[in-house]
């Protein structure tokens, strides 16, 4: 048992903007690692994105930033200046890991070349989360979440279906390409730390977000090498039902990929005659004749309530799911029983509710130790630590989370 977490004792530096580096180190901080986040004087751009509790932009109250950076300390250092780099290098001396998402063309200017860092601390693992890697011809390309979602092949797969050629490929909500980069970076970072147990030295890990996105194309990518076919959002789904329906109080997703599930759904719908028509007799037939079947089903669905239908279907082992709104999630009895969401009082903006850890580790439980740092909140503390020869020392009491719920 270690109430401080599975990774207690690891010292991590993050030089992150937006999501990619910050979520990687959040995962590790939530697991008990000690993280110092280094921000430029104007702050991580996540401080500008909100949402904001009062509706008015405030760099110390941006929801995205508060979520991504709890359990971390934060300092300000401008890595474009010599003083900033000096401060970074003082931290590097005692660190296990440095994770950043500074684009490759700027890495050298910010003092982030691995050789220089290793000269100070050869046990350091450096993880560079990049848009395109550091080798191929696109390595210096400018990128944003949307262009990387496109570059990894995922945008092409989503959007309006057959017959909607005029509508563009569609991105998912939020900054999902960056989240994928973050997850892969956390995996690779821990891998490199395991390697260090055997080799005694650190190394440089380069993550390509384009490749992270391409890694999750499900079965679609292999259609090309295996069969010469190109998957697109405009193709017909081979089997049905796998679609959205509007009920009287919201949306539901009907998923019946097995014949026995369809049989039970037909029963739940009151055995309408049309369900027994030859053209809907098996999942492939239902796929071919989906336009007709969808209309017939929609008529019935429109009379239903999402919640009742969800539970009634699940009671019959039919994998229907509500199209959850944020309100549905926050009010979900299931998620509440698991203590998933965490609510705490932040000194800068009052009551904050965030998603908690998506896993329960029996011997090393998740804990919200400190709220996200205000811009430069720990700069003085770290500078004092440097003067006394221990940059990682905590001076005084660390900022405590005032109120905590969830687990």
């Amino acid at each position: 048992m270690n109430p401080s977490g599975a990774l207690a004792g690891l010292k991590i530096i993050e030089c992150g903007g937006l999501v990619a580096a910050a979520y990687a180190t959040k995962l590790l901080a939530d697991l008990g690692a000690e993280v110092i986040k280094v921000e430029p004087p104007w702050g991580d751009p996540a401080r500008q994105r909100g949402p904001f509790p009062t509706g008015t932009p405030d760099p110390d109250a941006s929801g995205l930033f508060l979520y991504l950076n709890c359990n971390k300390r934060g300092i300000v250092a401008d890595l474009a200046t010599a003083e900033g780099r000096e401060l970074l290098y003082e931290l590097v001396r005692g660190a296990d890991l440095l994770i950043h998402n500074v684009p490759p063309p700027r890495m050298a200017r910010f003092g982030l070349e691995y050789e220089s860092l290793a000269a100070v601390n050869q046990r350091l693992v450096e993880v560079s989360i990049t848009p395109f890697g550091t080798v191929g011809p696109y390595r210096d390309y400018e990128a944003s979440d949307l262009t990387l979602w496109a570059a990894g092949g995922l945008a092409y797969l989503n959007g309006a279906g057959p017959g909607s050629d005029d509508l563009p490929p569609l991105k998912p909500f939020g900054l999902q390409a960056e989240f994928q980069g973050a997850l892969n970076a956390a995996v690779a970072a821990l891998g490199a730390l395991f390697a260090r147990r055997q080799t005694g030295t650190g190394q440089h890990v380069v993550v390509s977000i384009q490749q992270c996105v391409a890694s999750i194309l499900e079965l679609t990518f292999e259609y090309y090498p295996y069969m010469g076919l190109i998957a697109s959002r405009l193709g017909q789904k081979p089997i049905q039902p796998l679609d959205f329906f509007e009920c009287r109080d919201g949306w539901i997703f009907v998923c019946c990929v097995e014949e026995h599930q369809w049989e039970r759904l037909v029963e739940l719908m009151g055995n309408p005659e049309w369900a027994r028509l030859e053209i809907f007799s098996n999942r492939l037939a239902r796929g071919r004749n989906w336009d007709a079947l969808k209309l017939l089903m929609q008529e019935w669905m429109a009379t239903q309530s999402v919640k009742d239908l969800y539970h009634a279907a699940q009671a019959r082992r039919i994998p229907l799911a509500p199209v959850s709104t944020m309100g549905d999630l926050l009010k979900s009895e299931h998620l509440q029983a698991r203590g998933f969401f965490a609510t705490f009082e932040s000194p800068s903006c009052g009551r904050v509710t965030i998603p908690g850890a998506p896993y329960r580790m029996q011997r090393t439980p998740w804990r919200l130790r400190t709220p996200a740092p205000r811009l430069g909140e720990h700069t003085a503390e770290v500078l004092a630590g440097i003067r006394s020869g221990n940059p990682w020392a905590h001076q005084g009491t660390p900022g405590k989370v005032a109120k905590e719920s969830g687990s």
Partner: protein
Amino acid sequence: MKPLSGIRVADFTWVWAGPFCTLQLAHLGAEVIRVESSLRPCVTRLLPPWPDGEPGVNRSGYFNQYNQGKLSLALDLKHPEGIAVAKDLVRVSDVVCENFAFGVMDRLGLGYDALRSVRPDIIMISMSGYGATGPEREYVSYGPAQVPLSGLSSLTGYRGSPPMHVGISYGDPTAGLHAAVATLAALWHREQTGEGQWIDLSQWETTICMIPEAIMEYAWHGTQPERNGNRDPWMVPHGIFRCAGEQRWVAVVARDDAEWQRLARAIGRNDLAEDPELATLSGRRQAVERIEQAIEEWTLQRTPMEVTQVLQAAGVPAFPCYDSRNLAEDEHLREEGFFVELEHPEVGRKLHLGIPWRMSGTPCSVTRPAPLLGEHTEFVLRNVLGYDDERIQNLLASGALR
């Protein structure tokens, strides 16, 4: 030497979420032994694509993509001898990973308590759809339904239009990666303390972790962001634009005012670059339709790659919406060393996607293709479990090795 050399994973996973977790561990050099049965093969072995359209449990590109580098042990877990072998495997393993519905492992006699009694420091991760507690824990969970359940669909869609999917069963890889992180952390803890543990992961929760902005907006204001196509509240323009050719598209973004100026000039619209109304984000929000129209007038005359080259030369983020053929033929990804092409006994040399990161000191690469069903049964029984010929013959005769 690879990062996880010497670590063995008893892999009871199937479909996509679980195998994606153990793929990460295989990439890092762990010996991952997939426990499978020909009596109920992994769903992905039964799905296309197959070369020449000809099905076969060893021929699916879906399975072969996400099980690279693993071994396969054929075992009937409904057979008492099969369970005995499974426990022997756990006895010599560091990690057990499974993504069955809640309760299945317990019913098989392979729950955490049973496994801990054969291997006290075992790390076991269960990755069910809903998690192992809570009133809905026994609900049926399928990949495509996880995306709507997670809330991502209610946020995704064209303006004023119904909720949409995201193109893949996004909850699966998201759960798989979170599971890999938790498993590695538990291994780290075991190295420090000698103690194993059980991890209860909820696939549903892993995806909610990736939409914090919307959760927090609702918690503060009781509203949720409206579906808004490809636009972004803080970057204008931010879209996917039609290009010359059939279904050719390019993503273009201006992250700040300076990038907008460069973008406008690069598409030959100095008038827009100099328009004071468009100089600020709030001004561009007001004029977003006009800006998007101007960009598309220009992109329609060019291929996605031509657009990309012109805009990248001006320092503006742009990239084509790659399809699978674009990916497979991409020189950049080839130079990055992303692809894997290994000889597979039933499908030959096919292109697969490899590891999305590079390590300078302990390079990792995929060194064996996905296994045939049961390909390593004898190897595992003999070399990993130390069974002798007689034991193996008896097992074969019992029907447990199917």
